[in-house]
């Protein structure tokens, strides 16, 4: 670990001030501290934002949800409003990490977490995300867990979050605050695909702070759920995952929100699958047909070809679990 200084912000203004001067925000610390120990992250200054008043979960007037950036994963998962309105979010959170980590990690930190790509986390390996221009060791390396969607020749690392997949599916938005004021960014624009600049991961301006994630009100009744496919049953990142929310009225799917995890450089919104579903009646045949489009555009690597088929089957299974069928 490299030496660093540490300050604790008591209010938002103070935090933004320290952030503008190059300080790195830290809340639960479950990603950043690990990476500092590995010397992947070498911040000069840490600004602890844990004391900021961003720990509220509010049901919005229209029936959406606003989750404060410092709400712990475990708090969000257990929240009655979250459980009632968006089971997909509770499930994604509860299938993440371990109980200990969920008690520390925050929602804002969760969507900021960095990839599990082993080459990124090993400072002696080539990684464009960690060291722009050094190359991508994963592209032709051991890449079983890497992305098949949204990749570039410069980076094939997956975004590791589960709840971000639910956020992507539900078309959440991210509330940000900077020295110049507040703004809101659609979730789809918040996390960036690597392209030729994999070191740029979020659409954050220097010193900007996440204050909340907002889920839009969706037509009710809404059934939703999250499926995580992984080698072991707990405490592991997804090989593939699917977040599905369906609004079915009079036997017809009126709204479909679907996204996949473990396969994309960012949580992967499956618009082609959604299009197949809307206006149709739930059936096993429909789930299979729609899921056929789950891996559209996939670019598999040497060790992760199986993810193409596994992704389709994961989405098919979760459509059936949420939408009904045998």
């Amino acid at each position, binding site marked *: 670990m490299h030496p660093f200084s540490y300050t604790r912000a008591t209010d938002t203004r103070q935090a933004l001030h320290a952030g503008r001067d190059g300080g790195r925000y830290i809340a639960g610390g479950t990603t950043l501290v690990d990476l500092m120990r590995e010397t992947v992250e070498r911040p000069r200054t840490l600004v602890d934002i844990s004391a900021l008043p961003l720990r509220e979960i509010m049901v919005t007037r229209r029936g959406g949800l606003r989750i404060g950036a410092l709400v712990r994963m475990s708090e969000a998962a257990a929240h009655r409003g979250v459980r009632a309105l968006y089971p997909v979010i509770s499930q994604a959170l509860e299938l993440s990490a371990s109980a200990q980590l969920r008690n520390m990690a925050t929602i804002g930190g969760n969507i900021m977490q960095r990839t599990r790509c*082993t*080459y990124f986390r090993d400072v*002696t390996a080539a990684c464009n995300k960690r060291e722009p221009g050094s190359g991508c060791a994963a592209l*032709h390396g*051991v890449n079983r867990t890497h992305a098949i969607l949204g990749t570039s020749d410069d980076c094939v690392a997956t975004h590791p979050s589960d709840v971000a997949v639910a956020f992507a599916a539900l078309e959440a938005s991210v509330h940000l605050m900077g020295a110049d004021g507040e703004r809101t960014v659609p979730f789809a624009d918040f996390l960036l695909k690597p392209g030729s600049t994999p070191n740029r991961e979020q659409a954050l301006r220097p010193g900007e702070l996440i204050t909340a994630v907002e889920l839009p009100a969706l037509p009710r009744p809404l059934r939703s759920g999250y499926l995580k496919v992984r080698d072991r049953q707990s*405490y592991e990142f997804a090989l593939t995952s699917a977040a599905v929310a369906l609004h079915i009225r009079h036997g017809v799917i009126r709204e479909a929100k679907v996204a996949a995890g473990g396969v994309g450089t960012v949580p992967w919104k499956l618009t082609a699958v959604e299009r197949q579903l809307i206006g149709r009646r739930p059936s096993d045949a429909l789930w299979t047909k729609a899921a056929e489009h789950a891996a559209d555009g996939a670019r598999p690597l040497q060790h992760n070809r199986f993810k193409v088929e*596994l992704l389709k089957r994961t989405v098919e299974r979760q459509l059936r679990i949420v939408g009904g069928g045998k």
Partner: protein
Amino acid sequence: MSPQPQAAVGAPLSRVDGRLKVTGQAKYTADHDIDGVVHAVIVDSSVARGRITGIDTRAADAQPGVLGLISHLDKPALAYRDNPGAWLDPRSGERLHVFQDDKVRFLGQPVAVVVARTLEAAQHAADLVKVSYDAEKPSTDMSASGVPENDPLPPQNYVRGNPEDALASAVVKLEGTYRLTRNHHNALEPHATIARWDGEKLTVWDKTQWTVGARDELAAVFGMSAENVRVISPFVGGAFGNGLRTWPHTTIAALAARQIRRPVKLVLTREQLYYGVGYRPAYEYGLRLGSTRGGRVTAALHRIRAETSSYEHYVEGVMNPGQMLYATPHVRQAYRTVPLDVNTPTFMRGPGWSSAAFAIESAMDELAHETGIDPIELRLRNEPQEDPVNGLPWSTRRLTECLRTGARAFGWHRRNPKPRSRRDGDWLIGMGMASGIYDTLRMQSEARVRLDADGTALVQASTSDMGPGTYTSVTQLAADALGLTMRTVRFELGDSTFPPSPPHGGSQTMAGVGSAVQDGCDKLRQEAIKLAVEDERSPLHGVDADDIVVRGGRLHVKSNPARGETYRQLLARNSRTHLETRGTFTPSGDDRYSMNAYSVTFAEVAVDRRLGLVRMRRMLGVYDVGRIISPKLADSQALGAMVGGVGQALLEHTATDHRDGRIVNANLADYLVPVNADIPDIKAIYLDGEDLHADPIGVKGLGEIVKVGVAPAIANAVFNATGRRVRDLPITAEALL
């Protein structure tokens, strides 16, 4: 000598050191608080093959708190004498010498060590050391083309009968190549060493399974007398075989302490545990079987390849099961090690035997399927009457009982031999089984037993307790043999100044150390009895010594418990502060019996028919291991090994990037071991009995055999569930989609 009443032995007692462990009072190596200790951190090579061309230490030296840095540039004087005591080390090749030259033999090889006042300063300074290399392309993949031709050593061969002819004329023929990936031990406690020099004397606190082995190796490396080295290791937080050898970091800690003239603590990082110590080698195991239509295996041809390092040829007992598990008349085996630019492999639970069992027991399951014979019946038909290798009778071999008992207890009759015939929603359900064998090792052992005037006893041996519960089971033996309660007997271990013990590995600790303790306690009890019957003032005066037993610290006439006295009374009256004896165990020669432990493991799995995920539903192990001294701890061993087997079968895989020899999952987030959610209902059954040919206490060893056969039982269950015969471990979703 009247047999002692059995009270503690066979009782399901909890660990005597359990409270210390759960309250954090048990001191593992890095926990020892040594006055004036400073901290060492190893800088390891980032290339797998080549030469070190420069070491820039300027930034590191400038860090506050840094006390020194050692590399090959300092030419540290180390004797590296031959160590005839290191019989566990590979017979061929030479151990890694630290900091003696500029050659890099594997990625992760120690190239320097930084010592600083604090751990943080040492870690940071180690990060700042810049090492430059003249790197060459490494060879780390035993499956790559061209690799076998590099092997300078001829293979080990075994042959009986005419295997080629027998195979050619066999009615049923099978052929398969089984690939077992490299596994790492991943014990919770990292390997660690604290070294302190007091003049010419070296004291080392070390994570080790063999204190006297570590003592002898340090003496050989530093060119000193073994009497001047003391190794202390009272608690070991899991080792699974990786603490049997003395690894380079132990030398480095002692070297740094000598150079800096301060006690030095060195703890390997989790990542360094993938390079700095050993691992279970990867195997390619080609097996051809020939059989009659009735399932009698007539021919078995084994072609075995395993990885090793470029500097040592590590071999293990992978050939044995293929020679003696079944009565096969015609057998050929060739076992070759493939030298690569990697560190040397080592023993890992069920070493060799469990790797062979995966191939053999998978093939037997395939043969059962091909011939339409039930897998259990098939094994019964191939049961040998004597050891086929040497014609010796078995001391005890109750494998058929294990098969029958297990089949009943597991509900084997409910298994449908037709694959894919049982379903539960999206899950395909399958059952599988596999047999196992592991030889009963026994070695010379000694123990000191002392009974104090207060009526408590102290027993000492230099052995270890890496988790199986040596503290507890030896105390149970001693308590009964001395006629004392568990609370009044203390067993101390883990110190090379205690009476010598063999390596705490190979399932031999109870057989050797237990028998030596039994002997010492018997002698001491008899000495006390003799003292009493010859003492005119004793109520036992004149009684036949053979009629006296001891219970609860009181000696009495067996048929008349009222007549007697306590150890305390006896010793006080005779003005004795204590009685002391030395127990020994010397194994009888191996020439009369073939001695082995046996297992049958049963597994029921569910496989998601679309997603390819394998989930365990039930497991059962049935064991012929002789006498069970400590049933609760035996269960810990058996259940733990089945959990380890789930890891080997479904999860564990050391993944190397062969472009540069880097292990890409050298951490516990990416190297998957089972978590609680992966583990189903597990049970263990031990056949009641003992093997007195093996040793006086009748044990055959437990810790290794419980691992042998677990992975093939699971793979066979996967076949029964899906119809897919997976020959590569671990079995992951992509093999079953």
